[in-house]
């Protein structure tokens, strides 16, 4: 027992020394991670990252050749990205599937949607300049945005909620306006389709919430009045008919059927022009 006690002190010292070295190195690593402005792939602690280059050709309808194509640009949030579609086609894929093979072949779908994006994030993405080439070459632009603006709201106190909703709405309006202006200035002829918000909660929603949803869509439409060559799709009405069929298993995003419906409506709108 005494022998153990005698060991205790040197043991503590050594352990402390070892841990100190470990912690200092860990700390240094954090500094390098947060401080480095190098591209991750070229830093010395890379983990042998492989950039996967699999492309699912059937899904996209994108051919390998680099002839000038008609670009369909999709921007916005997860619905733009096609989340929830069991066959991963999304709006773009399904729209192409409504055309003939030859026609579909002349299109390329470019998707800069970011799941979870808010209107302001979409605007930042647009204005970053990374997509200017696609914008200039686009024939159609589909915009799905606004659903995420209403997340992350603080507090549920009714009076505060009303104020905050108003704030979010006016932010959305401004950002949407700026985004559309940017698009229009970059490309005078592109046709723009803006998707309205639908109600994923169906009959279980509070009246207040539904009213606000309509307000949101209404204000969005008002913004569109300022522009030419622009269409609004009232998804609220489209989905209300058969919510169960059009929602995916997560009860939030559209299902494959839902995306198919959206694509059909878009085709109607574009063809009519």
């Amino acid at each position, binding site marked *: 027992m005494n022998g153990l006690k005698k060991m205790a*002190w040197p043991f*503590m*010292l050594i*352990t*402390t020394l070892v*841990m*100190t070295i*470990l*912690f*200092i*190195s*860990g*700390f240094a*690593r*954090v*500094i390098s*991670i*947060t*401080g*480095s*402005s190098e*591209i*991750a*792939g070229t*830093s010395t*602690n*890379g*983990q042998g*990252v*492989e*950039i*996967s*280059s*699999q*492309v*699912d050709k059937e*899904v*996209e309808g994108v051919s390998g050749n680099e002839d000038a194509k008609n670009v369909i640009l999709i921007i916005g949030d997860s619905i733009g*990205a*096609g*989340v929830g*579609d*069991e066959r*991963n086609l999304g709006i773009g894929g399904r729209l192409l599937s409504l055309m003939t093979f030859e026609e579909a072949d002349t299109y390329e779908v*470019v*998707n*800069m949607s*970011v799941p979870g*994006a808010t209107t*302001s*994030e979409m605007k*930042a*993405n647009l204005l970053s300049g*990374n*997509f200017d*080439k*696609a914008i200039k070459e686009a024939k159609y632009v589909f915009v799905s945005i606004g659903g995420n603006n209403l997340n992350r709201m603080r507090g549920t106190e009714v009076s505060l909620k009303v104020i905050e909703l108003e704030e979010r709405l006016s932010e959305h309006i401004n950002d949407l306006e700026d985004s559309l202006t940017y698009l229009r200035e970059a490309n005078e002829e592109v046709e723009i389709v803006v998707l309205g918000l639908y109600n994923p909660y169906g009959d279980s929603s509070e009246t207040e919430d539904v009213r606000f949803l309509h307000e949101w869509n209404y204000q969005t439409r008002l913004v569109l009045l300022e522009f030419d060559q622009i269409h609004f799709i009232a998804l609220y009405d489209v989905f209300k008919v058969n919510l169960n069929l059009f929602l995916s*298993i*997560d*009860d939030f995003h559209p299902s494959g059927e839902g995306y198919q419906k959206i694509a059909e409506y878009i085709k109607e709108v574009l063809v009519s022009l």
Partner: protein
Amino acid sequence: MPLVKNEVMKMLVSRKPYLILVLLVVFIGLFAYGEQYSYERSIERLENISEAISFNWENLARQQIKDMERRMTSQYISEEGKVSLALEIEQLKYFIENDINPITPSAAKFAGRFAEQGILLLLPLLVIILAADIVSGEFSTRSIKVLLTRAVPRWKILLSKLIALFIMITLVILLSSVIAIFISVFFFGRFGFDEPVITGFSMFSGGLNVSNVIEVSQLEYLLLLYSLAWFVCLVIGGITFMISVLVRSTSASIGIIMTALIGGQFLQFLLSDWELVKYFFVTNMNLPNYLSGDFQVVEGMSFGFSVSVLSVWALLSVFISFVVFQKKDVLV
């Protein structure tokens, strides 16, 4: 220095280590149980929603991979964005290959979460228990007289206390991580050290900055997090040490530092309005946030900034301690 050994012995002999041990075990146990409970509820909920179709995370994961791969082929995404996407794909592939639902808790994940949460209040509390009476305790039991009437200069005595505190804090952090891992393994059954973690995200107004994103294993990630916790605790230890020297009363010391910690949490809310708040040490304690990008960081604050602020506070505290201790008349 054998003086240091004396000081460490004094700390061990008091009831403090037991208290710390008990606190750790209790909190970690509760926390782990809570995690397990909420995880099981999430699974239940998801399964309920899908009704006939049983919830299959794997499909969802594959879907996400396809989606990301598609985005990567576009010419319009930046290099950095591509790399970040590639990493996320790698991560998801790992989960699929090893048949692990990404949201399944593991010991490693839990220990990490514990460090992230604990760094703000629980771990500093443990440090305060160690540090608060390190000097003031000697005054209240008057054993300081015996200590200072030796042929040893005062600064050496204070230094030995400081080093002893350093040792104890390091060991406590080690102990915390070990307890966290082993208790949670008991609940979750998996260590999960090899799981990939992607870190290096940061938020700035407008969105996620992915230029520094890299992939590490859970084990590495744990090391990173606990290193940060270690650093923060050392700083808190230094400040408490100074308070102990200045105030000479253990209860007052504890009161002061706890007020600072808790008050600081409230000050966080004023962060965007009041410039000075960002120089307070408490608002800079959430270092793991710089790795995970969980919430927005105020203009002008960065990892480097926070580390500097904390370091200055610590160094200043130690300096003041030495100056005051050297001059003080011992009247007990």
